[in-house]
């Protein structure tokens, strides 16, 4: 094979691999702490660049009102919890203010977009998953699938069916080992690496990160230590949405964005997370890169089958996992 083509396919694979790795990390994190398989994750990931695109067109995106609205509902639900409702109402106001700021200062649009999407995770957790503590994985999954359809519909309503092109945060091309690669792609991979390192440090070093891990592995032990499992769930959803939104904003200039891309993206992240047995962070990253590279090469050799090839990856992985006990089953 032509080394140049090989290089292009590999760099392409690594860039989308970085995206899938981040989505997979977010899914593993959410599952570990809350037992929720977060199917609507893909929608939230594309909501970020779509929000950015609409802001750049000079309109206030519907996600701003959605986010602010969910925060307000949350504030009403928690109205008896001291300062919490006040802080939530303040956050809702901040989201709306950020939206208008993004309109006024286009350079801030990517940041604003992430900020707007961020509350979706914790708010959905609070509204839909928290009221059912200790439900089975299946119940949560059904709920998550339902939310996926809701958010897909909302995506169509907010953004319409068209594709949006987004300006690169870092325009131009860089030469990597003599290969021309878009700077935006390099940014994606570097940012993903930095985010993973930051997450690693958070979980390995800070007591808050350890508390999150503790809540994931032993709920009763966590509660006995004064760690609130609900709060851990909210934090997990918040981190996951943040990771997803950032990944979405970083990748969109390379691939465009439309509301219907979310599902497939989430599904590929999910394949990567399954490679990791929904439990190992390093394996989730490896799985993401594997999915990205596989997709890139199969789109060259058998482009009609590229999705099928990626999802076919599930079969050997599931077969191998069912032999060597799946984390999912152990926990139940």
């Amino acid at each position, binding site marked *: 094979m032509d080394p140049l083509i090989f290089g292009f396919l590999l760099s392409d694979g690594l860039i989308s691999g970085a995206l899938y790795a981040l989505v997979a990390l977010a899914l593993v994190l959410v599952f570990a702490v809350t037992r929720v398989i977060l199917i609507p994750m893909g929608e939230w990931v594309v909501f970020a660049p779509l929000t950015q695109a609409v802001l750049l067109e000079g309109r206030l995106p519907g996600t701003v009102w959605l986010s602010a609205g969910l925060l307000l509902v949350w504030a009403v639900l928690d109205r008896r919890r001291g300062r919490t409702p006040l802080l939530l109402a303040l956050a809702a106001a901040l989201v709306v203010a950020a939206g208008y700021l993004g309109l006024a200062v286009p350079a801030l649009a990517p940041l604003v977009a992430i900020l707007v999407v961020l509350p979706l995770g914790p708010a959905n957790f609070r509204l839909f998953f928290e009221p059912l503590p200790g439900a089975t994985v299946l119940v949560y999954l059904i709920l998550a699938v339902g939310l996926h359809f809701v958010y897909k519909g909302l995506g169509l309503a907010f953004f319409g069916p068209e594709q949006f092109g987004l300006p690169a945060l870092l325009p131009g091309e860089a030469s990597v080992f003599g290969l021309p690669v878009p700077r935006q792609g390099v940014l994606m991979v570097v940012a993903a690496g930095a985010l993973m390192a930051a997450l690693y440090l958070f979980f390995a070093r800070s007591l808050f990160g*350890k*508390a999150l*891990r*503790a809540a994931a592995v032993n709920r*009763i032990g966590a*509660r*006995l*230590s*004064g*760690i609130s499992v609900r709060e851990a769930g909210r934090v997990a959803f918040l981190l996951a949405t943040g990771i997803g939104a950032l990944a979405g904003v970083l990748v969109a200039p390379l691939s465009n964005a439309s509301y219907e891309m979310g599902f497939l993206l989430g599904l590929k992240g999910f394949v990567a997370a399954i490679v990791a047995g929904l439990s190992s962070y390093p394996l989730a990253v490896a799985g993401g890169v594997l999915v990205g590279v596989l997709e890139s090469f199969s789109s060259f050799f058998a482009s009609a089958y590229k999705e099928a090839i990626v999802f076919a990856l599930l079969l050997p992985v599931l077969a191998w996992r069912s032999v060597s006990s799946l984390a999912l089953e152990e926990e139940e």
Partner: protein
Amino acid sequence: MLEVRGLEVRYHAAVAVDDLDLHVEEGEVVALIGPNGAGKTSTLLALLGLVACRGEIRYQERTLNGIEPEERVARGLVLVHERRQLFGEMTVEENLLLGAFARYKRGERHLEGDLERVYALFPRLAERRCQLAATMSGGEQQMLAIGRALMARPRLLLLDEPSLGLAPLIVKEIFGILRRLKAEGTTILLVEQNARAALELADRGYVLEAGRVVLQGPAAELREDPRVIEHYLGIHGEGSG
């Protein structure tokens, strides 16, 4: 410090704790003894809010009804669970530090002093501070569970069978530690099958059978009570305590 009235715990139709009254005063060590299935663990779990219950629980002059377990821990009501509930894949020191999480969250950052205190009480934990909790022996795990609870600076320490499944020598060691905690003024509610050791340590005691208090009084009196002697002191290992 703790006042419980009419506590009732049910699992579906089965009543595990039935109309239980109990109180613990500041600085006291109170023993709760009784046969398997008497409802001792259920009582402690209800005190922490980990199982649903009826009745009134007052702690430090305030009701605990409707308060989350985490908040109770933050107020100094700390339980050493029957099954220890350690974080097996984390090190001894991480387990201990997580025990102080409620305090850390409030902004307390100087936990080294507390760590040193726990290590002084349990030198074995100090030697093994980097070992994973799951790889420790049963006795060491029990020490770690108690150490983790102490990291929360308990005002009322609830202990659920700290001697369960341990060799007599380790049991002796653990009761030695409890005696030291008592001497330092820690208030303790101790659930034990090892009634002899428990009643030697405690100031007062309750005997629980089938979810009800059948006997109560100063520990010295309970030790002399013929029913207690026959049912709880006769059979248990002589070497402990």
